[in-house]
């Protein structure tokens, strides 16, 4: 049985295992020592063979660079969605008077359209999904490099603000802009391999991206733009409350403590220092967080202590919305950290009114409004 099956006991049959089954192309011919089927004559000397191989790999490399350029160009042509927001910023087309910076909480909580209507000042949201403060600072620097200086930066704070990036989330969003040192240098600091995405063609689009962003690029190259789901950088989340928080609480019944890294504090100081140096009014805002989550953050007081220290040191107002009137209502959240579109609309109205009051009062006694909850 085994003789018939797994392998046979005669050496002839063993050697039969060594024989190739037909495979792709000229493999067998090469094995058998015969000339491969070819429409063109095989090169007669090693040198001409080498030339031909080099020729092929040169063509392949050129095609890879061309494809890379096509994808990058396509992504940079997109006018909607996340890439659209990036492109507006990197092309210097934003020039807003009020900009919002921060993480995904910033991106999904502040509607610039409401802020602009209420305050009478143009607004834009620079919040980046999955970003920590170091990358948020990088985005702000890139913005300042390409756009006119805003009057005001509203920086949204998170419980994890003092934790720096240990990996880059959604790396593909940065790839078309790696030529910009304000983006490239911090990415390289987080992931030293970032040079490969900058210099090796296609690397950034295929190695670190599971979302086929390169397909968007190819379509973008031919003038296509995805559905408009970002509004002046604002990324509303239409989803209702999910079970994310319940899962989180089940796995962390004793709560969590967010890291407070010296480097994280330094980055926040850099951000405040940058605004101070450029004469930009900075406002720290802790936007609404689901109240049950606040109870699970064991070192919340310590984190807020650092926020207050920073605010005092750089004379920055700190507006804390932890006790927002709807903070306990899951109807306005999609999970513990993110408001849904309905919650974001309400919050945007609140913050816009407060900004309007602040701006109005600034001429006389702005300091009166520097409230620390």
């Amino acid at each position: 049985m085994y003789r018939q099956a797994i392998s046979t006991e005669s050496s002839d049959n063993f050697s039969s295992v060594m024989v190739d089954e037909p495979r792709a192309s000229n493999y067998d011919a090469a094995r058998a020592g015969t000339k491969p089927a070819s429409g063109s004559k095989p090169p007669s000397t090693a040198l001409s063979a080498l030339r031909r191989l080099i020729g092929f790999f040169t063509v392949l490399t050129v095609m890879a660079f061309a494809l890379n350029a096509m994808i990058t160009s396509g992504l940079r042509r997109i006018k909607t969605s996340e890439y659209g927001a990036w492109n507006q910023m990197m092309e210097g087309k934003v020039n807003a008077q009020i900009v919002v910076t921060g993480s995904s909480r910033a991106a999904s909580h502040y509607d610039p359209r409401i802020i602009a209507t209420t305050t009478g000042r143009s607004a834009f949201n620079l919040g980046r999904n999955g970003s920590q403060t170091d990358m948020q600072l990088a985005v702000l620097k890139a913005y300042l490099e390409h756009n006119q200086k805003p009057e005001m930066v509203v920086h949204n704070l998170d419980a994890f603000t003092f934790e720096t990036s240990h990996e880059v989330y959604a790396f593909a969003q940065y790839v078309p802009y790696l030529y910009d040192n304000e983006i490239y240098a911090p990415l390289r600091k987080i992931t030293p391999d970032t040079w490969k995405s900058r210099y090796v063609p296609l690397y950034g689009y295929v190695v670190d991206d599971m979302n086929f962003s390169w397909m968007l690029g190819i379509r973008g190259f031919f003038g296509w733009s995805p559905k408009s789901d970002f509004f002046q950088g604002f990324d509303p989340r239409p989803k209702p409350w999910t079970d994310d928080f319940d899962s989180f609480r089940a796995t962390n019944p004793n709560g969590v403590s967010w890291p407070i890294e010296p480097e994280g504090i330094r980055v926040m100081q850099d951000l405040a220092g940058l605004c101070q140096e450029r004469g930009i009014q900075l406002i720290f805002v802790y936007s609404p967080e689901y109240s049950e989550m606040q109870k699970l953050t064991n070192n919340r007081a310590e984190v807020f202590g650092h926020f207050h220290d920073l605010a005092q040191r750089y004379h920055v107002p700190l507006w804390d919305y932890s006790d927002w009137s709807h903070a306990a209502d899951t109807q306005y959240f999609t999970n513990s950290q993110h408001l849904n579109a309905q919650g974001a609309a309400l919050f945007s109205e609140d913050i816009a009114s407060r900004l309007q009051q602040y701006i109005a009062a600034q001429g006389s006694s702005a300091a009166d409004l520097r409230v620390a909850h």
Partner: protein
Amino acid sequence: MLFNSVEFAIFFPAVVAMYFLSPQRLRVGLLLAASCLFYMAFIPIYILILFVTILIDYVAGIYIEKVEGPKKKAFLVVSIVSTCVVLFIFKYFGFFTSSFEGLAGLFGWPVPHYVVKIILPIGLSFHTFQSLSYVIEVYRGKQRAERDFIVYATYVMFFPQLVAGPIERPQNLLHQFREWHEFDYANVTSGLKRMAWGFFKKLVVADRLALYVNDVYAAPRGHNGLQLTIATFFFAYQIYCDFSGYSDIAIGAAQVLGFRLMENFRTPYYSLSISEFWHRWHISLSTWFKDYLYIPLGGSRVNKSRHIANLLITFGISGLWHGANWTYVWWGLLNGSYLVMGSLTKGWRDRFFGAIGLHERSFIRKATMLLSTFILTCFAWIIFRAHSMGDAVYVATHLFSGWDFGNIKTPQFLLRQMPVALASILALEVGQLLARRKTPFSLLGKMPVPAKWAAYAAFVLLVVMFGVYQNRQFIYFQF
């Protein structure tokens, strides 16, 4: 160093260029140095383990050839035992101590609890078996002992097949290090094509399917029957493409340098029986176990019960070779049982097919056999892939329960991945079928150079663009 890394993309052309530019006397040394560099890219210090086994078997080979009688056998035993001790310490020590503790616990014996955390050197089982085949062949007089240490070390460490085979025999590979390999265009290009096909299997098929399989098998109880079924089906393709993809790259890379390695896979899922499957799957290991374990045990030239025992022993140990876990042993034993059952029921099955009018060449009969072989293989893969027998039993008993078509995705594998995954499997099958017929490739060969280049370049770029680069290690590296 991983084949699917930027480092290898630089390393390999550099080695090829230096190899063909070097005179013969420097070539083996160059390959050895390159192989050391390749291996040290994983955990550098582990090269010392390789060096020890190489040294032991090199010296043993010379003495085995020199002496006769009981001394000859003694040298063989010393060589085998010392090589296996290294394998045991690094791979099986923890397994045996925990199994012993479990057994002792059953009888209430007090035993101290040992926790040994050793990282398994990559590909240890592969180069250990390759070393063993050398000393055994020298002992049997089928291979002359290699006097040149550099040549012998290169035989064990040859970088294309160092970490995951094919497990070569000295008769096939050793002499090739002494041969002059011309830079041969046909050889180089067909080697490169073979590598490209291997990369397709690994990057496009295996690594994308792995995203789904890893999620589901990490927590099978959190997934419905449909997800378990899809994951099991995907795993059959994942492991095939991962391992045969590695073999294709290894064979292709060696071919570029002018070397011939043995075939390791011959489209195993086209087998019409489990016995045929094992004739087409991981051939270099199957034949190793046949030559050095199954036949010495008596093979099939013994009475029926002994023959069955020989099969089960061979497959049980083959399972254990794959990993230090009872799941692998059970997987091996299940495959051995398949073969036993296949043998015992062959006459009955032939009569059954004959009775319903399906002769041996009948398409329906072949299709039935192919499908049943694939299903049995998939069933065995459940045990192979599961983290524990408990998980394996859970998966096997819940494959068809609670199918939820609205809940197919997993955290890593969103629904947008599904069409690409299915298309990649389809492309694999089409590629394999075309390769059997050869015609399209012959046509491609007759095309003018620019058209051919465009087709090849398009294929390479498709592999690059649709490849997955998150789960970069090859499954068989752990063995």
